[in-house]
């Protein structure tokens, strides 16, 4: 609950949010601005406390040092001590993680190389660009070989090349078996790596589940036929079909409910139906559909 100072008014920040992410999964935490993503992440990290309900992170209470020892965290709008250099900051975080000094230099150099900040290790952080700060944030998140990565907008402030590098890095981490929980607004990128999706809006859970299951349940079907007579175009369009003529085939996209009728029409016109498959929507389409539905019902 949010409560303004000197006010009795209480607004629910989050309500009925329930989800889980399994070990080794990449879980995308999505929602429009102000949906409550950062608040949820703050609760997971133990920075804020939920009024009711139960939260467990790696089997421990949020904020428990045993859990935090296994977590790498990148906050949104990352802030650092600007008078430190990257190497000094990482050394400080190693100390905070309780790691001994032995091998620290090698580890720091390796991490800075990984996030493409080598050569800048002795520059004060205050002189870093937004993108460099984000890379440094990722380096500190990876510092203590965490089992779980919680990344709030990891590609924010990065140029397209930088975003690709972060995605590659996340792919590598995924292949190493790390569990990644990330929030992002760049859905096509998220779709490339995530296994599970949690969508929230206005503090409420909209949908949660495995990505392939959520996207497979599309309401449209695509038929591919070798050719169709021109007189059939208007008949199909009347029935809500979209026709796309290619050099060797014709693609007809229709509502799943009308697929039988269309198939019979094509059959009667002696068209050769090559394939018929459900149209898989993109994560972006699915997200907009889910959030749009709530807009409509609100």
């Amino acid at each position, binding site marked *: 609950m949010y409560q303004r100072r000197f006010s009795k008014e209480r607004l629910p920040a989050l309500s009925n949010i329930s989800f889980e992410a399994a070990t080794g999964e990449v879980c995308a935490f999505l929602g429009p601005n102000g949906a409550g993503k950062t608040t949820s992440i*703050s609760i997971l*990290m*133990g*920075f*804020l*406390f939920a009024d009711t309900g139960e939260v467990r992170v790696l089997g421990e209470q949020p*904020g428990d*040092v*045993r859990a*935090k*020892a296994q*977590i790498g*965290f990148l*906050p949104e*709008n*990352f*802030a*650092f*001590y600007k*008078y430190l250099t990257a190497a000094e900051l990482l050394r*400080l*975080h190693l*100390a*905070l*993680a*309780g790691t001994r000094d032995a091998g620290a230099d090698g580890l720091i150099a390796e991490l800075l190389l990984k996030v493409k900040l080598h050569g800048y290790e002795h520059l004060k952080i205050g002189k870093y660009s937004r993108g460099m700060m984000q890379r440094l*944030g990722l380096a*500190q998140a990876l510092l203590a070989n965490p089992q779980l990565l*919680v990344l709030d907008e990891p590609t924010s402030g990065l140029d397209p090349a930088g975003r690709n590098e972060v995605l590659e890095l996340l792919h590598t981490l995924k292949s190493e078996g790390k569990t990644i929980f990330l929030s992002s607004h760049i859905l096509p990128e998220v779709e490339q790596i995530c296994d599970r999706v949690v969508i929230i809006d206005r503090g409420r859970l909209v949908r949660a589940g495995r990505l392939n299951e959520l996207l497979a349940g599309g309401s449209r079907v695509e038929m591919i036929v070798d050719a169709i007579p021109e007189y059939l175009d208007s008949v199909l369009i009347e029935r809500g079909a979209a026709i796309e003529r290619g050099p060797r085939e014709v693609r007809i996209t229709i509502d799943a409910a009308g697929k039988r009728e269309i198939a019979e029409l094509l059959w009667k016109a002696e068209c050769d139906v090559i394939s018929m498959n459900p149209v898989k929507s993109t994560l972006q389409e699915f997200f907009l559909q889910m959030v749009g539905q709530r807009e409509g019902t609100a």
Partner: protein
Amino acid sequence: MKVRAIALQTFGSLLRNKLILLFLAGFVCVVLLMMSPLLMAKSMAGTISVAQSQGWVLSMLSGITSFVSGFGSLLAAWAAADAVSTEMRSGTILAVMARPVRRWEFLLGKYLGVQLLMLVYVLAMFALGYLLAWIGGQAIQSTPWVPIVYPLVRYAVYSAIALLLVTVFHPVVSFGIVPVISVLISVFGPSGEVSFVPRWLHAAFYAVLPSTGLLSETRFLSLTRASLRPEPWTHHLTALVYGLDYALVCFLLAAWSFRKRSLSRL
């Protein structure tokens, strides 16, 4: 290791804190201004009697050391309040607290960082005292630990109070309350005489407020001779343990208050 890392980082941040540097620059200007009458008294030594000159010098010395000592209390309070609030305002606390650091460890690191700053301040204050005594033609013959340890413990109390207040209030409010407490101490302390408040309220204030007078090194330093008054060691021990105990209670209260504090930006 974690607490040490936070303490050293806090000390480094405080040394770069523009507001604290501004305070210190102002402080140096005031000390230099206050030194001019001292130097004048010294230069007039031939035209006025020795006793009169010595009286001037000693009163100047007393004024400057009191000012330096009082400024230290404000510095301790501000540094403690600022050390925590700056982290929350800038959001740097999130990266720190995402590490396996307990909240009390974070507060303890901040507190010890402030004490490091105050140690530097006290050593500078100590050197200034000797410098002023030398300029005034006096010699401080006291045991050095008294003018170092007593102010340190006193500042530990003030910074612990500010640390406790900043876990609840805005840093400016927390800093503002500390001078109010100082005034209350002077009013309700052993030397304070107030007739307009009920006895029970007076007794309550007397019990709750720290007795910083007890922790004042000037109790042992007789400025007329600038030498240490003979005191039994148990007396020193009792006074210092009282101060440390008060600071510990304030710190524990701060840790308790901070344990469920939202770490969102102020």
